[in-house]
């Protein structure tokens, strides 16, 4: 059951080969067997089996949707009523939300079953899943390497077949980079396509939730459920949601692919460059044309991103003050002592670093030099993308400059860690949709291909990814011990 796609599982459920309760119990047992990966922060066995029973009734009545009865785990950044939402932080270790995030509501309405909440970097700040209060997640391809971050728990759980699919969020690459490092498919939708209501905010102008699965076909089913206008989210975009599965089989003959030359500099590992080149050649065989494009301001994406993300994080995380919810220090002397000690005791070092950086960048006298400048650079980067995407249909390139690195290798050097997001961050600044799909291996570790599209071109991206997955089997390969 663990190697089947969502479509295959849904078909089996309808044919009564097994019930949703049996399917859910199977995956709960598998999650339990592989606790060493540390993918889950909470396993919600009781409520999952209750949801599965309800799904079986819907299936029997013929009222099921594509996801009814299918286990779909949730990144622990989405608020879930009655089940802990920690966001990977000690700050929220005791937080049980009184409401569901819109994304959770939508999965519930679709009849999906939530087996648990997935591990993640604290408040989604990290590129390796080492900053979680609940410890690092292990990459199933090699237990000594990172799964990527911040949706590392999601990527590792899907790669190890602990769940068929799950959600992630992407502020600077947190869906695509772990998808790449764990050999799965991940899609960051256009900013505003998926509601952020009930998704704990890190950097509000960059954060975007999206689907992670083993194939583009499964990701399309998840996005269909997640996408859509939400009046509760003031950044949600009111535009029609297409049928993402309907166009998966469209021909990509004549597709114009742009390769940004800045993505292929000497910083890119040669083995990864070779994998990307081979994949692009496969696309040529499918009828695509390839053209080199240039994005001259791309090199400033990292400084611009870290100013904007840190500034927004310092504002968003000011709500965690020990007063209303979350961690509170013991026996505070006065109000300031309560704020300072609650925050100091409950936030980890990376979160503190970004709060400090953001507070500095926004403080009197530095706003113009950092924040305003970063927003101007952001505009120029966005213009670069607009120009490139006016010449071609999509851009392709690597997701990450290296394959998954060893646990602990970069955790002492924030700059090295930040540079590992060099190919993903600019897309968030521009708000564009982008995917990572399995494209091969380098040094026995998975390598992802990044496909970047124009605003709201998710259906086209899924189509392009699916067409490649019809002629390749990288997405079907499982790590040893998890087949």
């Amino acid at each position, binding site marked *: 059951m663990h190697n089947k796609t969502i479509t295959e599982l849904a078909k089996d459920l309808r044919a009564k080969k097994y019930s949703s309760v049996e399917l859910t119990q199977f995956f709960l047992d598998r999650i339990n067997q592989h606790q060493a990966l540390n993918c889950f922060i909470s396993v919600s066995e009781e409520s999952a089996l209750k949801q599965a029973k309800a799904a079986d009734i819907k299936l029997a009545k013929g009222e099921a949707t594509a996801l009814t009865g299918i286990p779909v785990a949730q990144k622990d950044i989405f608020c879930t009523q009655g089940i802990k939402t920690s966001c990977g932080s000690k700050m929220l270790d005791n937080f049980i939300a*009184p409401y569901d995030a819109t994304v959770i509501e939508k999965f519930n309405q679709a009849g999906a079953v939530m087996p648990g909440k997935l591990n993640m970097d604290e408040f989604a700040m990290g590129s390796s899943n080492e900053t979680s209060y609940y410890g690092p997640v292990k990459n199933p391809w090699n237990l000594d390497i990172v799964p990527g971050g911040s949706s590392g728990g999601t990527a590792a759980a899907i790669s190890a077949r602990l769940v068929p699919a799950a959600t992630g969020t992407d502020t600077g690459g947190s869906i695509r980079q772990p998808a790449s490092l764990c050999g799965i498919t991940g899609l960051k939708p256009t900013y505003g396509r998926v509601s952020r209501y009930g998704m704990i905010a890190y950097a509000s102008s960059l954060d975007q939730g999206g689907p992670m699965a083993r194939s583009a076909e499964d990701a399309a089913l998840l996005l269909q459920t997640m996408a859509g206008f939400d009046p509760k989210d003031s950044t949600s975009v009111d535009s029609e949601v297409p049928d993402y599965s309907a166009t998966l089989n469209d021909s990509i003959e004549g597709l114009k692919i742009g390769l940004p030359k800045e993505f292929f500099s000497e910083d890119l590992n040669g083995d990864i460059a070779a994998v990307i080149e081979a994949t692009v050649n496969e696309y040529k065989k499918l009828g695509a044309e390839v053209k080199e494009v240039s994005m001259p301001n791309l090199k400033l994406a990292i400084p611009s991103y870290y100013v904007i993300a840190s500034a927004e994080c310092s504002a968003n995380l000011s709500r965690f003050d020990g007063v209303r919810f979350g961690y509170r220090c013991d026996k505070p002397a006065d109000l300031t002592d309560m704020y300072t000690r609650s925050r100091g005791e409950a936030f980890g070092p990376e979160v503190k670093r970004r709060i400090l950086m953001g507070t500095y960048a926004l403080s009197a006298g530095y706003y113009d030099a950092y924040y305003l400048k970063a927003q101007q650079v952001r*505009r120029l980067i966005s213009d670069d993308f607009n120009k490139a995407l006016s010449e071609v249909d999509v851009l392709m390139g690597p997701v990450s400059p290296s394959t998954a690195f060893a646990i602990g290798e970069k955790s002492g050097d924030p700059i090295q860690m930040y540079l590992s997001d060099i190919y993903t961050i600019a897309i968030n600044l521009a708000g564009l949709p982008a995917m990572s799909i399995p494209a091969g291996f380098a040094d026995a570790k998975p390598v992802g291909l990044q496909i970047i599209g124009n605003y709201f071109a998710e259906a086209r991206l899924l189509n392009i990814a699916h067409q490649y997955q019809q002629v390749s089997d990288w997405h079907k390969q499982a790590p040893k011990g998890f087949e």
Partner: protein
Amino acid sequence: MSLTADDVTKIAHLARLGIDTQDIENYAKDLSNILNLMTQMGELDTEGVQPMAHPLDQVQRLRPDEVKEDNQREHFQAIAPQVENGLYLVPKVID
């Protein structure tokens, strides 16, 4: 551009963020390195470039100022650590 331990202490105070004394030097070093990275933006002439605050340049959507939410006091208080007579109990922090 580099930050001193005093700078970090001042920023931490502005952010109401407790930092252990033995960690201050490390934060000063890391933040100085990150600031150097950020200073690279100074190489680019951005004179007259319109700042981009929102990826889609959308304006903030407004809604009529109407009460829509039901009173959910009991529901919210069900998860509070301490409640008495419909009120939240919190430790005394102001004399």
